[in-house]
């Protein structure tokens, strides 16, 4: 098939021929306030309008996959924390479940519930950062501090649970590292009651602000087929109206026991798949996460969460691709075992990596300010892209 049959990657620029302009090459990053880390984007611009944008990544490459081949299965878990350092719990979870499926290991009920609770709490924490930094990208500073105020409470909960605030190393193969301390579940419930009304506060100050809508609606539209073709996943793909959430479509852990909805973009403020939709999906998902946490807190059984954690991990030879839904999208671990102590190969299919790769397709024709909005709406974490 010829390349012309591909989904459109370039939108036409509306510049009349008699206007003689000159292209300017602009290096946005690696030190730039709104590239969300050490991302560099080489821009070719015509005035404020972008003609092409090419992301340059790798500034934060930390050889995760090479490290993983040289340490034991268990020692990989702390490294997974450092992939997407904003949602470490979700990263632990995918790796642990992948190994459990390879080893055919049953996990203790209580541990399963704890996993779901921490994963969803971390999803909220991650979406909060996405919201806050997105406001920052658009120029609103205050929502950023509001979300950090509430994220702090989640971090406090995690600190009480496992001693760490950012890199948890909490979800282990076969269970979790520590059982919840006494009264912790009640604190989580208290948090959900506190948190739900706060989402309205964010909506008042940011989501439904006229200027914010003007800036984000109809900007950076990712048509669903383009998104799928580029491997975009998670809220960024759901924003384009594609109903694809691994928690529903390929349930792992005990997600099939909970009642929650998959939020998709409907184009309420503009076109389906614009930056506002992607943003809105994250806001709506926080409600769903609260729902899941509430159900899990009510149903969590008594027991020993560390009961099924094996002393030695012996993985039968074979390979397995385990995909889980992290706040950024489909995080896949492709684990190959040769039966030894160390994994033979751990490949990470990082969601932000594929999400970012769509940027060159949707950037041409927008303004510099819009590019900032688009990068923000993809919610990338460079730790995960560069691994």
């Amino acid at each position, binding site marked *: 098939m010829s390349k012309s049959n591909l989904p459109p990657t370039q939108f036409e620029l509306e510049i009349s021929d008699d206007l003689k302009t000159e292209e300017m090459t602009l290096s946005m990053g690696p030190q730039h306030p709104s590239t969300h880390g050490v991302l560099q984007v080489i821009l070719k611009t015509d005035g404020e309008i972008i003609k092409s944008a090419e992301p340059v990544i*790798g500034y934060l490459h930390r050889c995760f996959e090479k490290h993983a081949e040289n340490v034991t299965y268990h020692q990989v878990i702390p490294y997974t924390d450092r992939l997407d350092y904003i949602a470490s719990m979700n990263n632990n979870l995918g790796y642990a479940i992948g190994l459990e499926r390879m080893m055919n290991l049953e996990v203790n009920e209580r541990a399963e519930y704890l996993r779901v609770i921490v994963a969803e709490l971390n999803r909220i924490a991650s979406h909060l950062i996405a919201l806050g930094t997105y406001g920052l990208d658009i120029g609103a500073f205050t929502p950023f501090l509001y979300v950090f105020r509430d994220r702090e409470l989640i971090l406090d909960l995690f600190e009480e649970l496992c001693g760490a605030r950012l890199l948890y190393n909490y979800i282990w193969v076969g269970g979790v590292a520590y059982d919840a301390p006494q009264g912790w579940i009640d604190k989580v419930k208290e948090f959900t009651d506190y948190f739900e009304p706060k989402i309205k506060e964010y909506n008042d100050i940011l989501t439904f602000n006229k200027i914010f809508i003007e800036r984000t609606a109809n900007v950076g539209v990712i048509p669903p087929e383009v998104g799928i073709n580029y491997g975009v996943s998670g809220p960024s793909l759901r924003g384009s109206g594609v109903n694809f959430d691994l928690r529903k479509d390929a349930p792992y852990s005990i997600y099939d026991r909970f009642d929650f909805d998959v939020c998709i973009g409907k184009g309420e403020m503009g076109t389906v798949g614009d930056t506002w939709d992607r943003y809105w999906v994250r806001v709506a998902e926080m409600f769903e996460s609260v729902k899941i946490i509430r159900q899990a807190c009510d149903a969590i059984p008594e027991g020993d969460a560390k009961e099924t954690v094996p002393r030695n991990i012996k993985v039968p030879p074979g*390979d397995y691709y385990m995909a889980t839904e992290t706040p950024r999208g489909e995080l896949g671990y492709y684990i190959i075992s040769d039966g030894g102590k160390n994994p033979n*190969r751990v490949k990470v299919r990082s969601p932000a990596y594929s999400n970012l790769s769509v940027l060159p397709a949707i950037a041409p024709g927008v303004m510099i300010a819009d590019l900032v909005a688009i990068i923000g709406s993809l919610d990338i974490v460079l730790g995960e892209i560069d691994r």
Partner: protein
Amino acid sequence: MTAQEIYDTLKKKFPDTVLEFNSEALQPFIKLDAEKQFYELCQFLRDDEAMDFDFLRCLSGVDYGEPLGAVYHLFSMKHRHEIVLKIEVAREGGKIPSVADLWRTADWHEREIFDLYGITFTNHPNLKRILLPDDWEGHPLRKDYVTPEYYNGIPILHPDTKGKTNE
């Protein structure tokens, strides 16, 4: 479609390309020959109504010891079925037809495999290193990779231990 049905269809249509089918594995996979009509097979997988694999979930490079390999995890948004394709190529001068214009996901993933394993993807629009600097030597994820001591005069390994840990 189940993996078995997909295999049967492919075997009928591309008898030369399809080498082997393993349904015993946790995730059934099909082994393919990269040199014979691999691109056409991928195109069939993507465009055929019954297949409709529009989502390339993951593309991983693997070092199998002697040969190198690439593993494709495909998924269909419409039919919600999946399949795993495996390819093996020679360690030196291994070539795989690029599928970057079928699934754009493959663009960056193929560059990554080229970067870390040194497998060449023919017809790739922009095959250059992605994670490592352009002038890096060697392909680090190969099992026989030896870390160089210096990169542009910068010591890579700690000068005292030279990469050895105290065991």
